């Protein structure tokens, strides 16, 4: 079987799997899997850029995805004028002072000669700056958060169309990635893994606790949509009549319509990103990336600035993850910082990349769809399995209820198993790099 035929077949298998979910469960479920699969595929492309093409080990995907989610809120939610009046400007000044402190410390570090004077200067700037920063920021934060806390209590966003947040989410994630990369990749030896692991936790902590920014664990709900609302469709006589033409009732038709609209939007983004990733890698820049990956010493000897290249691809990959994060939050219609967990948003994406095929963009896309399908479907399959196993047991027995209750945790086990099996028996993934 030739390469293209095999790969097409693999994609067909995933399509059939999703279709089976459509027939056996519901088309809403199937479309949701498809939409999330599209988003997952984009995340996987982002991680694949970093790991597959540059060998960078990013275990902070969750953080970049969450930044994208934050971008969705900051771009699309209407601003809260009361909160802005109460303390918005003060918060901004506080943040500016905080940034100035760090920049000041960095300047002293780079401009002043090494010695006790420099150390004392840096400590003085950092400690003094921290108290000034907190002194200015805290009252502003308190003021903002006390404005109608049950419904708002945050500054809101810019009130722009939510689609704008997708590129902006990418920019935001890319910016933070630049800061991390600049520090972690510039160290004498590279500590990217631990740096990304830590930053991701910090980003989530900020989203959970800085209520003025993201409403914290109170969540931001009702993020505007780029597609019509179901209720509007149901009230639209034209839509109802054409739905009837398909033999569907208006409620189901409207939910399917909305999901299809998302799928269309996401598909366009995925295709654009995929095309860009493919073009970039076939370009001289991409060839150089791979040359560095395969023989860093030789590339360095030829005068390539390896750290700079690594930084570039790290920023790009993280930006793609941020973009996907903004899309995800748009699809959910809400930002819930409490749901960001590393297993789901970092390590699952890694499973997608490894299973799909590190170094191959199509592999990453396939992995995104396949692993997301498994992630969703293992649970019902697990419940079904447990029902079969426990069918002989007495109703209400402790073991039976325990097994039934635990079926939900099968998915983590399955993900690990799939990863280990692929790593062992097909270490290059399902669609290997060419």
């Amino acid at each position, binding site marked *: 079987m030739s390469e293209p035929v095999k790969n097409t077949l693999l994609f067909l298998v995933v399509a059939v799997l999703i279709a089976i979910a459509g027939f056996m469960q519901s088309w809403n479920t199937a479309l949701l899997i498809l939409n999330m699969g599209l988003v997952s595929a984009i995340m996987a492309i982002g991680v694949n850029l970093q*790991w597959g093409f540059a*060998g*960078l*080990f990013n275990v902070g995907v969750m953080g970049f995805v969450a930044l994208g989610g934050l971008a969705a809120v900051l771009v699309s939610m209407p601003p809260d004028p009361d909160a802005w009046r109460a303390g918005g400007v003060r918060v901004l000044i506080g943040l500016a002072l905080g940034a100035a402190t760090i920049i000041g410390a960095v300047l002293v570090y780079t401009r002043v000669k090494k010695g006790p004077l420099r150390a004392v200067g840096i400590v003085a700037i950092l400690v003094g700056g921290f108290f000034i920063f907190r002194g200015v920021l805290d009252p502003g934060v308190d003021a903002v958060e006390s404005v109608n806390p049950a419904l708002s209590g945050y500054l809101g966003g810019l009130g722009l169309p939510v689609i704008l947040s997708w590129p902006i989410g990418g920019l935001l994630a890319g910016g933070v990635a630049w800061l991390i990369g600049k520090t972690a990749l510039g160290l004498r*030896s590279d500590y990217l893994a631990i*740096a990304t692991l830590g930053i991701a936790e910090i980003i989530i902590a900020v989203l959970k606790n800085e209520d003025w920014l993201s409403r914290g664990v109170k969540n931001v709900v009702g993020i505007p949509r780029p597609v019509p609302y179901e209720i509007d469709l149901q009230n639209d006589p034209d839509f109802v009549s054409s739905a009837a033409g398909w033999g569907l009732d208006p409620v189901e038709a409207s939910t399917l319509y909305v999901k299809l609209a998302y799928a269309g939007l996401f598909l366009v983004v995925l295709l654009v990103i995929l095309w860009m990733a493919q073009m970039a890698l076939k370009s001289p820049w991409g060839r150089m990336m*791979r040359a*560095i990956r395969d023989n860093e010493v030789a590339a360095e000897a030829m005068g390539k600035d390896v750290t700079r290249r690594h930084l570039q691809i790290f920023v790009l990959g993280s930006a793609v993850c941020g973009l996907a994060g903004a899309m995800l939050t748009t699809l959910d219609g809400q930002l819930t910082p409490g749901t960001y967990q590393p297993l789901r948003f970092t390590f699952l994406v890694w499973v997608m990349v490894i299973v799909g095929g590190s*170094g191959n963009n199509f592999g990453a896309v396939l992995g995104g769809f396949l692993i997301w399908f498994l992630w969703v479907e293992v649970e019902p399959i697990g419940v079904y399995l447990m029902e079969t196993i426990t069918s002989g047991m007495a109703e209400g027995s402790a073991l039976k209820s325990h097994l039934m209750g635990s079926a939900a945790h099968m998915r983590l086990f399955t993900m690990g198993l799939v990863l280990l099996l692929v790593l062992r028996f097909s270490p290059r993934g399902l669609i290997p790099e060419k």
Partner: protein
Amino acid sequence: MPVAGNPYQDDRGNKDRSIANPQGAGEIVHRKGGKARPSEAGGAFLIGDAMTGGYGKGPDILHDCTIAVNQGEIAVIVGPNGAGKSTAMKAVFGMLDLRQGSVRLDGQDISDLSPQDRVVQGMGFVPQTNNIFTSMTVEENLEMGAFIRRDDFRETMAQVYDLFPILKEKRRQPAGELSGGQRQQVAVGRALMTKPKVLMLDEPTAGVSPIVMDELFDRIIEVARTGIPILMVEQNARQALEIADKGFVLVQGRNAYSGTGRDLLDDPEVRKSFLGG
């Protein structure tokens, strides 16, 4: 190597020290070897006989190459860069896949043994680089040398200290803190701790100053005087042949000249081609 090669060894150029530790990682593949068989073939005490082979499935590096050392002798392998000197020694030690030929030690055919098993059979091997445990003290290095021994090895340790007095002085110091020449003494001492039947040295004087080199050669002669045959690869052909009972000149993995050290030094061909006139 992204596409060819072992996919499990493809780290995509990752250099992340927070997750991966390349320090001290080994290259020798742990393989289960076969058994030693008594051999009637005879020949020298240790002989790599008509060896042909290379690394793994790679091309042959050695071609019908023979290396041998007898009891009480020092044998040296010399030759130009890339002649396969170290490869020949590694082949004798079982770190190469032989396609033809055999290795025999003390009347036993050991061709199928893994390197570890050859150590048990009585071969002491001192690699060219990374030949000491840098983070461990000198004494611990010697103890590790005696790892396969279950008897009391204090006497052997005393002998090593007699041979290398400086090591006794520095026995509580981490071996990594010693000078180049002292490190080589630790390396040789570690190999002697097994009470080997034969000692193999891969370029023991690489990277040390001429004075230290002379001292090391003196020590090696002293070791040989205790009755242990020594097989040695050397870059400094002239000095090495001067102390050698037997010499092997290799060129492109083949025996070019063999003879006593004196004969080779006197051979005009050898002098012209390898000893700089």
